Protein backbone atom coordinates (compact mmCIF):
# COMPACT_ATOMS: atom_id res chain seq x y z
CA UNK A 1 0.00 0.00 0.00
CA UNK A 2 1.16 3.45 -0.79
CA UNK A 3 3.89 1.97 -2.88
CA UNK A 4 4.34 2.52 -6.55
CA UNK A 5 3.72 -0.67 -8.38
CA UNK A 6 6.66 -0.79 -10.72
CA UNK A 7 8.70 -3.36 -12.49
CA UNK A 8 12.41 -2.91 -12.74
CA UNK A 9 14.12 -3.81 -15.95
CA UNK A 10 17.71 -3.66 -17.06
CA UNK A 11 18.10 -3.33 -20.79
CA UNK A 12 20.72 -2.92 -23.49
CA UNK A 13 20.34 -2.24 -27.16
CA UNK A 14 22.98 -2.90 -29.76
CA UNK A 15 23.31 0.23 -31.85
CA UNK A 16 23.94 -1.30 -35.26
CA UNK A 17 21.58 -4.24 -35.41
CA UNK A 18 19.15 -3.45 -32.61
CA UNK A 19 19.81 -6.61 -30.68
CA UNK A 20 17.91 -6.02 -27.50
CA UNK A 21 18.60 -7.64 -24.15
CA UNK A 22 16.52 -7.18 -21.04
CA UNK A 23 16.29 -8.58 -17.57
CA UNK A 24 13.65 -8.14 -14.91
CA UNK A 25 14.92 -7.58 -11.41
CA UNK A 26 13.43 -6.99 -8.00
CA UNK A 27 15.63 -4.01 -7.25
CA UNK A 28 18.21 -1.84 -8.89
CA UNK A 29 21.52 -2.10 -7.12
CA UNK A 30 25.13 -2.93 -7.77
CA UNK A 31 24.60 -6.61 -7.08
CA UNK A 32 21.77 -7.07 -9.56
CA UNK A 33 23.58 -4.89 -12.08
CA UNK A 34 26.59 -7.15 -11.97
CA UNK A 35 24.30 -10.15 -12.50
CA UNK A 36 22.93 -8.42 -15.58
CA UNK A 37 26.39 -7.54 -16.85
CA UNK A 38 27.40 -11.18 -16.56
CA UNK A 39 24.45 -12.05 -18.74
CA UNK A 40 25.51 -9.50 -21.35
CA UNK A 41 28.97 -11.00 -21.46
CA UNK A 42 27.48 -14.48 -21.85
CA UNK A 43 25.31 -13.30 -24.73
CA UNK A 44 28.18 -11.68 -26.57
CA UNK A 45 31.00 -14.05 -25.69
CA UNK A 46 33.63 -14.20 -27.13
CA UNK A 47 33.23 -10.73 -28.61
CA UNK A 48 34.27 -7.69 -26.71
CA UNK A 49 31.44 -5.49 -25.51
CA UNK A 50 31.56 -1.71 -25.67
CA UNK A 51 29.00 -0.60 -23.15
CA UNK A 52 27.62 2.92 -22.86
CA UNK A 53 25.74 3.46 -19.65
CA UNK A 54 24.03 6.39 -18.00
CA UNK A 55 24.91 7.77 -14.62
CA UNK A 56 22.62 5.85 -12.32
CA UNK A 57 24.28 5.52 -8.96
CA UNK A 58 24.37 1.74 -9.09
CA UNK A 59 26.15 1.90 -12.46
CA UNK A 60 29.06 3.63 -10.78
CA UNK A 61 29.20 1.71 -7.56
CA UNK A 62 32.63 0.71 -6.29
CA UNK A 63 31.83 -3.00 -6.66
CA UNK A 64 30.68 -2.46 -10.21
CA UNK A 65 33.86 -0.60 -11.12
CA UNK A 66 35.86 -3.40 -9.59
CA UNK A 67 33.91 -5.88 -11.70
CA UNK A 68 34.56 -3.82 -14.84
CA UNK A 69 38.24 -3.76 -13.99
CA UNK A 70 38.25 -7.54 -13.59
CA UNK A 71 36.56 -8.10 -16.92
CA UNK A 72 38.50 -5.49 -18.82
CA UNK A 73 39.29 -8.05 -21.45
CA UNK A 74 35.67 -8.53 -22.45
CA UNK A 75 33.95 -5.27 -21.72
CA UNK A 76 34.77 -1.63 -22.06
CA UNK A 77 32.50 0.86 -20.36
CA UNK A 78 31.73 4.51 -21.05
CA UNK A 79 29.59 6.86 -19.02
CA UNK A 80 27.23 9.30 -20.68
CA UNK A 81 27.30 12.93 -19.60
CA UNK A 82 25.14 13.50 -16.53
CA UNK A 83 21.49 14.49 -17.01
CA UNK A 84 21.58 13.75 -20.73
CA UNK A 85 18.98 11.13 -21.50
CA UNK A 86 18.85 12.39 -25.10
CA UNK A 87 22.16 10.62 -25.73
CA UNK A 88 20.89 7.33 -24.39
CA UNK A 89 19.61 5.17 -27.21
CA UNK A 90 17.81 2.87 -24.82
CA UNK A 91 15.47 5.66 -23.75
CA UNK A 92 14.05 5.52 -27.26
CA UNK A 93 13.38 1.82 -26.80
CA UNK A 94 11.55 2.50 -23.54
CA UNK A 95 9.57 5.12 -25.39
CA UNK A 96 8.69 2.57 -28.04
CA UNK A 97 7.70 0.11 -25.31
CA UNK A 98 5.41 2.66 -23.76
CA UNK A 99 3.79 3.54 -27.07
CA UNK A 100 3.23 -0.04 -28.15
CA UNK A 101 2.69 -1.80 -24.87
CA UNK A 102 1.72 0.20 -21.85
CA UNK A 103 0.40 3.54 -23.00
CA UNK A 104 -3.12 4.39 -21.84
CA UNK A 105 -3.85 1.04 -20.28
CA UNK A 106 -4.79 -0.01 -16.82
CA UNK A 107 -3.03 -3.01 -15.40
CA UNK A 108 -4.87 -4.76 -12.64
CA UNK A 109 -1.96 -6.89 -11.57
CA UNK A 110 1.77 -6.78 -11.91
CA UNK A 111 1.68 -10.07 -13.78
CA UNK A 112 -0.41 -8.46 -16.47
CA UNK A 113 2.09 -5.62 -16.86
CA UNK A 114 4.90 -8.15 -16.87
CA UNK A 115 3.36 -10.19 -19.65
CA UNK A 116 2.64 -7.12 -21.79
CA UNK A 117 6.19 -5.87 -21.36
CA UNK A 118 7.62 -9.27 -22.15
CA UNK A 119 5.58 -9.57 -25.33
CA UNK A 120 6.65 -6.09 -26.43
CA UNK A 121 10.30 -6.89 -25.77
CA UNK A 122 10.02 -10.22 -27.57
CA UNK A 123 8.53 -8.49 -30.58
CA UNK A 124 11.46 -6.06 -30.60
CA UNK A 125 13.85 -8.98 -30.45
CA UNK A 126 12.04 -10.80 -33.19
CA UNK A 127 11.71 -7.81 -35.48
CA UNK A 128 14.55 -5.38 -34.75
CA UNK A 129 13.59 -3.41 -37.84
CA UNK A 130 10.76 -1.76 -35.93
CA UNK A 131 13.21 0.07 -33.69
CA UNK A 132 16.08 0.58 -36.13
CA UNK A 133 14.79 4.04 -36.93
CA UNK A 134 15.21 5.11 -33.31
CA UNK A 135 18.87 4.15 -33.42
CA UNK A 136 19.67 6.02 -36.62
CA UNK A 137 20.82 9.21 -34.83
CA UNK A 138 23.24 7.21 -32.73
CA UNK A 139 24.88 5.32 -35.54
Amino acid at each position, binding site marked *: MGQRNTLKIFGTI*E*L*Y*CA*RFLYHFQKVFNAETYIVYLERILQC*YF*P*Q*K*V*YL*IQDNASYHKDRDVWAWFADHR*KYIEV*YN*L*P*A*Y*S*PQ*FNALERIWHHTRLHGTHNRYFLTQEELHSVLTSTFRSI*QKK*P*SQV*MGYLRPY*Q
Partner: protein
Amino acid sequence: MKAIKIHGTTKKVQQLVKLSKQALREGAYRVASRLHAVVLSMEGKTAPQIGNILKVHRSKVSIWLRNWQQKGMDGVLEGHRPGRPPSLSDDQQRKLTDILDSGPVAYGFTSGVWTCPMVARVIDEEFSVSYHPAHVSRILHELKFSVQRPKKTLAQADKTHQSRWIRYQYPNIKKKPKSKERPSSSRTKRASGKTQPSIEHGRG
Protein backbone atom coordinates in the same frame (compact mmCIF):
# COMPACT_ATOMS: atom_id res chain seq x y z
CA MET B 1 -39.11 31.43 -73.96
CA LYS B 2 -38.39 28.79 -76.52
CA ALA B 3 -37.66 25.33 -75.25
CA ILE B 4 -33.98 24.56 -75.45
CA LYS B 5 -32.92 21.46 -77.21
CA ILE B 6 -29.33 20.37 -77.52
CA HIS B 7 -28.12 18.15 -80.29
CA GLY B 8 -25.22 15.80 -79.92
CA THR B 9 -23.81 12.69 -81.45
CA THR B 10 -23.59 9.39 -79.55
CA LYS B 11 -19.88 9.90 -79.25
CA LYS B 12 -20.35 13.30 -77.68
CA VAL B 13 -22.85 11.80 -75.24
CA GLN B 14 -20.42 9.08 -74.23
CA GLN B 15 -17.70 11.64 -73.73
CA LEU B 16 -19.92 13.79 -71.55
CA VAL B 17 -21.03 10.81 -69.45
CA LYS B 18 -17.39 9.98 -68.88
CA LEU B 19 -16.65 13.57 -67.87
CA SER B 20 -19.64 13.62 -65.56
CA LYS B 21 -18.50 10.45 -63.80
CA GLN B 22 -15.03 11.88 -63.42
CA ALA B 23 -16.47 15.07 -61.94
CA LEU B 24 -18.45 12.96 -59.48
CA ARG B 25 -15.31 11.11 -58.44
CA GLU B 26 -13.51 14.37 -57.86
CA GLY B 27 -16.33 15.65 -55.67
CA ALA B 28 -17.63 18.28 -58.11
CA TYR B 29 -21.15 16.91 -57.92
CA ARG B 30 -22.73 20.13 -59.15
CA VAL B 31 -20.71 20.00 -62.37
CA ALA B 32 -21.61 16.32 -62.67
CA SER B 33 -25.34 16.94 -62.44
CA ARG B 34 -25.15 19.79 -64.97
CA LEU B 35 -23.34 17.53 -67.42
CA HIS B 36 -25.95 14.89 -66.72
CA ALA B 37 -28.66 17.39 -67.63
CA VAL B 38 -26.91 18.20 -70.91
CA VAL B 39 -26.64 14.49 -71.71
CA LEU B 40 -30.33 13.94 -71.01
CA SER B 41 -31.20 16.88 -73.19
CA MET B 42 -29.14 15.42 -76.00
CA GLU B 43 -31.15 12.25 -75.64
CA GLY B 44 -34.32 14.22 -76.34
CA LYS B 45 -35.66 14.91 -72.85
CA THR B 46 -37.29 18.25 -72.14
CA ALA B 47 -36.25 20.56 -69.31
CA PRO B 48 -39.15 19.61 -66.98
CA GLN B 49 -38.41 15.92 -67.51
CA ILE B 50 -34.73 16.46 -66.76
CA GLY B 51 -35.62 18.44 -63.68
CA ASN B 52 -37.80 15.59 -62.56
CA ILE B 53 -35.05 13.03 -63.05
CA LEU B 54 -32.33 15.07 -61.37
CA LYS B 55 -34.71 16.36 -58.68
CA VAL B 56 -34.06 20.04 -59.41
CA HIS B 57 -36.40 22.75 -60.54
CA ARG B 58 -37.00 22.94 -64.29
CA SER B 59 -36.02 26.61 -64.44
CA LYS B 60 -32.59 25.61 -63.15
CA VAL B 61 -32.22 23.07 -65.94
CA SER B 62 -33.07 25.72 -68.54
CA ILE B 63 -30.39 27.97 -67.17
CA TRP B 64 -27.81 25.18 -67.30
CA LEU B 65 -28.72 24.27 -70.85
CA ARG B 66 -28.57 27.87 -71.97
CA ASN B 67 -25.18 28.25 -70.36
CA TRP B 68 -24.02 25.14 -72.17
CA GLN B 69 -25.28 26.50 -75.49
CA GLN B 70 -23.66 29.87 -74.97
CA LYS B 71 -20.37 29.06 -73.26
CA GLY B 72 -19.88 25.36 -73.80
CA MET B 73 -17.80 23.57 -71.18
CA ASP B 74 -17.05 26.79 -69.29
CA GLY B 75 -20.78 27.21 -68.71
CA VAL B 76 -21.06 24.13 -66.51
CA LEU B 77 -17.86 24.50 -64.50
CA GLU B 78 -17.94 25.90 -60.99
CA GLY B 79 -17.63 29.64 -60.95
CA HIS B 80 -15.75 31.67 -58.43
CA ARG B 81 -17.50 31.66 -55.07
CA PRO B 82 -16.17 34.42 -52.88
CA GLY B 83 -17.71 33.15 -49.65
CA ARG B 84 -18.22 35.32 -46.64
CA PRO B 85 -15.94 38.33 -46.59
CA PRO B 86 -13.41 38.23 -43.72
CA SER B 87 -14.16 40.38 -40.67
CA LEU B 88 -10.57 41.56 -40.60
CA SER B 89 -9.45 43.67 -43.52
CA ASP B 90 -6.01 43.28 -45.05
CA ASP B 91 -4.78 46.31 -43.15
CA GLN B 92 -6.05 44.92 -39.89
CA GLN B 93 -4.44 41.58 -40.60
CA ARG B 94 -1.14 43.33 -41.25
CA LYS B 95 -1.48 45.21 -37.99
CA LEU B 96 -2.25 41.98 -36.18
CA THR B 97 0.89 40.42 -37.65
CA ASP B 98 2.94 43.35 -36.36
CA ILE B 99 1.46 43.00 -32.89
CA LEU B 100 2.14 39.27 -32.83
CA ASP B 101 5.69 39.74 -34.08
CA SER B 102 6.51 42.19 -31.34
CA GLY B 103 5.57 39.61 -28.71
CA PRO B 104 3.02 39.34 -25.93
CA VAL B 105 5.12 41.22 -23.40
CA ALA B 106 5.18 44.29 -25.64
CA TYR B 107 1.42 44.20 -25.74
CA GLY B 108 1.17 44.02 -21.97
CA PHE B 109 0.79 40.34 -21.27
CA THR B 110 2.99 38.72 -18.68
CA SER B 111 3.40 35.45 -20.56
CA GLY B 112 6.20 34.92 -23.06
CA VAL B 113 4.20 32.95 -25.62
CA TRP B 114 1.09 33.78 -27.57
CA THR B 115 -1.92 31.57 -27.12
CA CYS B 116 -5.12 31.61 -29.14
CA PRO B 117 -7.33 33.03 -26.36
CA MET B 118 -4.78 35.83 -25.89
CA VAL B 119 -4.80 36.62 -29.60
CA ALA B 120 -8.60 36.49 -29.60
CA ARG B 121 -8.55 39.12 -26.86
CA VAL B 122 -6.13 41.29 -28.81
CA ILE B 123 -8.34 41.10 -31.89
CA ASP B 124 -11.36 42.01 -29.82
CA GLU B 125 -9.61 44.98 -28.22
CA GLU B 126 -7.94 46.29 -31.38
CA PHE B 127 -10.56 45.70 -34.03
CA SER B 128 -13.71 44.94 -31.97
CA VAL B 129 -14.16 41.65 -33.75
CA SER B 130 -14.91 38.68 -31.56
CA TYR B 131 -13.52 35.38 -32.71
CA HIS B 132 -13.64 32.00 -31.09
CA PRO B 133 -10.11 31.01 -29.96
CA ALA B 134 -10.28 27.89 -32.12
CA HIS B 135 -10.96 30.02 -35.17
CA VAL B 136 -8.10 32.33 -34.23
CA SER B 137 -5.82 29.37 -34.72
CA ARG B 138 -7.04 29.03 -38.32
CA ILE B 139 -6.49 32.73 -38.98
CA LEU B 140 -3.00 32.52 -37.53
CA HIS B 141 -2.18 29.64 -39.84
CA GLU B 142 -3.39 31.70 -42.77
CA LEU B 143 -1.08 34.49 -41.63
CA LYS B 144 1.76 31.93 -41.74
CA PHE B 145 2.20 31.58 -38.00
CA SER B 146 2.80 28.14 -36.59
CA VAL B 147 2.95 26.59 -33.16
CA GLN B 148 6.34 26.81 -31.49
CA ARG B 149 7.11 24.46 -28.66
CA PRO B 150 10.01 24.93 -26.30
CA LYS B 151 12.73 22.32 -26.37
CA LYS B 152 13.25 20.49 -23.13
CA THR B 153 16.66 20.75 -21.56
CA LEU B 154 17.66 19.62 -18.13
CA ALA B 155 18.87 22.42 -15.89
CA GLN B 156 21.49 20.31 -14.18
CA ALA B 157 23.06 19.08 -17.40
CA ASP B 158 26.55 20.27 -18.18
CA LYS B 159 26.63 21.83 -21.65
CA THR B 160 30.37 21.55 -22.17
CA HIS B 161 30.40 17.95 -21.07
CA GLN B 162 27.56 17.20 -23.45
CA SER B 163 29.23 18.82 -26.41
CA ARG B 164 32.48 17.05 -25.61
CA TRP B 165 30.56 13.77 -25.68
CA ILE B 166 28.91 14.59 -29.01
CA ARG B 167 31.98 15.94 -30.75
CA TYR B 168 34.76 13.86 -29.38
CA GLN B 169 34.05 11.02 -27.00
CA TYR B 170 31.14 9.32 -28.73
CA PRO B 171 32.62 9.34 -32.25
CA ASN B 172 35.72 7.76 -30.76
CA ILE B 173 33.78 4.87 -29.26
CA LYS B 174 31.84 4.27 -32.45
CA LYS B 175 32.69 1.40 -34.67
CA LYS B 176 35.08 2.36 -37.39
CA PRO B 177 35.29 0.69 -40.75
CA LYS B 178 37.94 -1.96 -40.76
CA SER B 179 40.37 -0.72 -43.34
CA LYS B 180 41.31 -3.76 -45.44
CA GLU B 181 39.70 -7.04 -44.64
CA ARG B 182 35.96 -6.62 -45.15
CA PRO B 183 35.20 -3.45 -47.02
CA SER B 184 31.46 -3.85 -47.61
CA SER B 185 30.16 -7.08 -46.17
CA SER B 186 29.78 -5.84 -42.61
CA ARG B 187 27.52 -3.07 -43.81
CA THR B 188 25.16 -5.45 -45.53
CA LYS B 189 25.09 -7.86 -42.67
CA ARG B 190 24.43 -5.25 -40.09
CA ALA B 191 20.70 -4.99 -40.54
CA SER B 192 20.12 -8.65 -41.12
CA GLY B 193 20.02 -10.16 -37.70
CA LYS B 194 21.14 -10.71 -34.21
CA THR B 195 24.29 -12.64 -34.69
CA GLN B 196 26.34 -9.96 -36.37
CA PRO B 197 28.98 -8.62 -34.01
CA SER B 198 28.53 -4.90 -33.79
CA ILE B 199 31.92 -3.96 -32.54
CA GLU B 200 34.77 -5.96 -33.83
CA HIS B 201 37.92 -3.98 -33.60
CA GLY B 202 40.27 -4.43 -30.70
CA ARG B 203 39.04 -7.79 -29.58
CA GLY B 204 41.11 -9.08 -26.69
